[in-house]
């Protein structure tokens, strides 16, 4: 393990009713967060390979944590997303190094497959900063019922030399979706979009 992890937090959010209407089956979203040391805190580095490798590790680790927390087979995962909050001793590009080059591949393995882009968000932040992790259907980015987001936040992180890395996985779309658009049963699953 390259990542120096201080803390891992996993949350499950299960919605059973909305505006008095039963949600059957309940929607369930998981978000797994790792608080890691930022190996490039406090200095400029052209090369960010360490963070790219850490991103590869965490895609698998946090993706598996979400699937385990949901208590599902990886094939049952429906949507996903990723995000990072960089402490003030780092720079936004550190989040990009974690999230973009290699994290997607290991996350897709953790949820068995994923043709769609993994939607993402990044920001600088202090202790307790919250980030809204975007969610999209893992096989077709245009599935409207699965456009969503879930908040990630660790109360005592990131310290200045830390980064909070979050991955979210669901086994469902929004509760009571009814704004039309591409439906799950209409997914062609060829281009990751529709």
């Amino acid at each position, binding site marked *: 393990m390259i990542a120096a*992890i*201080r*803390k*891992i*937090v*996993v*949350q*499950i*959010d*299960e*919605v*059973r*009713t*909305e505006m*008095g209407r039963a949600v059957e089956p*309940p929607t369930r979203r998981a978000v797994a967060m790792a608080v890691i040391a930022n190996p490039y805190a406090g200095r400029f580095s052209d090369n960010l390979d360490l963070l790219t490798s850490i991103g590869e590790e965490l895609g698998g680790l946090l993706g598996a944590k979400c699937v385990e*927390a949901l208590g599902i087979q990886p094939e049952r995962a429906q949507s996903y997303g990723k995000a990072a909050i960089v402490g003030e001793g780092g720079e936004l590009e550190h989040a990009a190094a974690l999230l973009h080059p290699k994290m997607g591949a290991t996350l897709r393995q953790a949820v068995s497959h994923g043709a769609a882009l993994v939607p993402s968000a990044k920001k600088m932040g202090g202790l*307790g900063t*919250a980030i809204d992790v975007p969610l999209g259907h893992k096989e077709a980015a245009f599935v409207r019922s699965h456009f969503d987001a*879930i*908040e990630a*936040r660790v*109360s005592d992180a990131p310290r200045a030399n830390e980064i909070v890395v979050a991955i979210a996985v669901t086994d469902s779309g929004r509760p009571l979706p009814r704004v039309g658009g591409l439906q799950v049963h209409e997914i062609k699953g060829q281009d990751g979009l529709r």
Partner: protein
Amino acid sequence: MITIRRLFTHIEDIFHEFGPVVPKPLRRGAIAAVMTNPFAGRFVPDIAPFMEELKPVGLMLAKKLIAGLQCAAADIQSYGKAAIVGAAGELEHGALWHAPGGYGMREALGWKSDAVTGGGAQPGNALAIVPSTKKVAGPGATIDVPLTHLNASYIRSHLDAIEVRIPGAPAADEVAYILVMSLGPRIHERLGGLRVDEIKRWDGQR
């Protein structure tokens, strides 16, 4: 009368807090039921009977949290509880959680009532009062939930707290009832005081 809108579970593993990495990470967790507040928006004098209806919620949350922590009930070392009441409610609605939340959790952790034991001091699980906090607040409010050792409140190594926050809840007409548990003491505890192996009185305190 019980309408649960959301169940929110939070599990964390702490590997270090800038001290030596511990061989086995400290696991702590929280669970919240976001429910409709049946008394929201008006003053209801007689709310106490609702505690009876909340009893199964307390037991259910305790069991779900133990399952989420992926451990046996006997592995739990400390606990706490809390309530966040939405804006159309009053603090007293949070106080409804004391008995059903506390006793539900203690029951799930092996506590036996005086009626079963015949009363008096006894070694056993979940003898200590469950520490608590409560507040009236808006969606996404944070609450710091105290944690103390489940057999003796004065065990210094286990005096702790965990922050709980449910994004988007509670709405004005809702209340979030919360239970928290930990599988161990503070990650780098080193301040002495009463130790777990020094519990003698089995009175829930020392």
